[in-house]
């Protein structure tokens, strides 16, 4: 489906597109007349918003891992578990499958998300060795998968509402659940703030190199 030299962006054609309903308007239009969505050719504050949510997201992710997520009390024991601690304990009991689900959902995915969002935001400024389509795919994966980190908060909610057996056993949510939920919400907002159209805009860096090469050719 690749048409060489054929694809032009709405911006290059002097138009501005609505990202909600795909309708196109003359440049400078501020509100889409079809769906009422606010439109902007490129949001110049987008990268700042991305980084702002990214930083608070990361700030919440630290206590989410250090503080206890659950505290369990049975007749014989009372213990508090962090996210990783809980997963390790499950693995020790032989529940490898669930331990892996928890580690992937609450450690691997959040860490990967922070790394990918940061890399994408930097690639807009400084260019990237990765192809545009690859970066677009990465962005879509992050946007899709981000919500799934919430799974651990739901597990804590379920466990602590279910295991309320008076003196026999009780599970109480720990402070980490709050921080973890906030961290997931903030990183979702960070990913949503990113304007993926910027991946496809001609790179400022590449432009500069091309211009320099042209000048050299002329001189030579």
């Amino acid at each position: 489906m690749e048409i060489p030299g054929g694809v032009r962006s709405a911006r290059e054609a002097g138009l501005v597109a609505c990202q909600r309903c795909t309708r196109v308007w003359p440049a400078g239009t501020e509100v889409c007349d079809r769906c009422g969505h606010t439109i902007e050719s490129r949001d110049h504050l987008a990268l700042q918003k991305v980084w702002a949510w990214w930083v608070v997201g990361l700030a919440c992710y630290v206590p989410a891992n250090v503080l206890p997520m659950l505290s369990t009390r049975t007749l014989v024991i009372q213990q508090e578990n962090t996210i990783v601690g809980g997963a390790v304990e499950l693995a020790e009991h032989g529940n490898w499958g669930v331990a892996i689900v928890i580690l992937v959902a609450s450690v691997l995915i959040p860490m990967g998300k922070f790394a990918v969002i940061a890399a994408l935001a930097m690639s807009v400024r400084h260019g990237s060795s990765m192809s545009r389509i690859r970066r677009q795919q990465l962005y879509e994966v992050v946007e899709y998968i981000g919500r799934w980190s919430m799974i651990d908060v739901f597990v804590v909610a379920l466990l602590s509402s279910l295991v309320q057996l008076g003196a026999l056993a009780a599970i109480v949510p720990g402070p980490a659940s709050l921080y973890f939920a906030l961290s997931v919400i903030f990183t979702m907002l960070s990913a949503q703030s990113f304007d993926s159209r910027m991946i496809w805009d001609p790179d400022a860096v590449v432009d500069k190199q091309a211009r320099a090469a042209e000048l050299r050719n002329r001189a030579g």
Partner: protein
Amino acid sequence: MHPTTPIPGEDLADLIACPKCDALYKASEPASMERAVCARCHTVLIAPRKGAGMRLIAVSLTVVILVVAATLFPFLTIRIGGASHSSSVLDAALSFQGGLFFALALAVAALIVFIPVLRALLMLYVLVPIVFDRPPARGAKAAFRMSEDLRPWSMAEIFAIGCAVALVKVADLAQVEFGPAFYMFSVLVVLVIVQDSFLCRYSVWKSLEA
């Protein structure tokens, strides 16, 4: 989709731009079950399906009924010796108590109950007049926009997977029984996926424009 070089003065209503990469195209509606895909970033732009409207109405209605019912019925029951305790979805959301936890309880309740129901209701409000060939409902555009904004925040299906994890965690502590709400939520997961795959946003906006 074929890229286009618009002539000045050409009717802008015939053009569409990829929301992900801003590539400009002359819109040509594909046949039912076919999809118009952006040539450079592969985002699906138009994907009309015959009878999708009716199916979406059916699915949205089912989602409303399932979530409301699943919220009220017991979800899981555990037993240790003589003691037992049942918990519904709302109990789970409200298990966060005291101070800041209260905000978390509200957020969890919103993510797994209120937002999925609200989205389904908005969808019904937008689609019912269109499908039955009536003029769009008042504020239908705002309703559909809101429904789209809420999409990432509707997490009923994630909660359903969370249940499976919670089950394994309590399994060696106590005996667990599924309540009727558990099966309702399992159906919900499938429905949410169906709902998203049938919805062609371009077609909806096009019919709201008329």
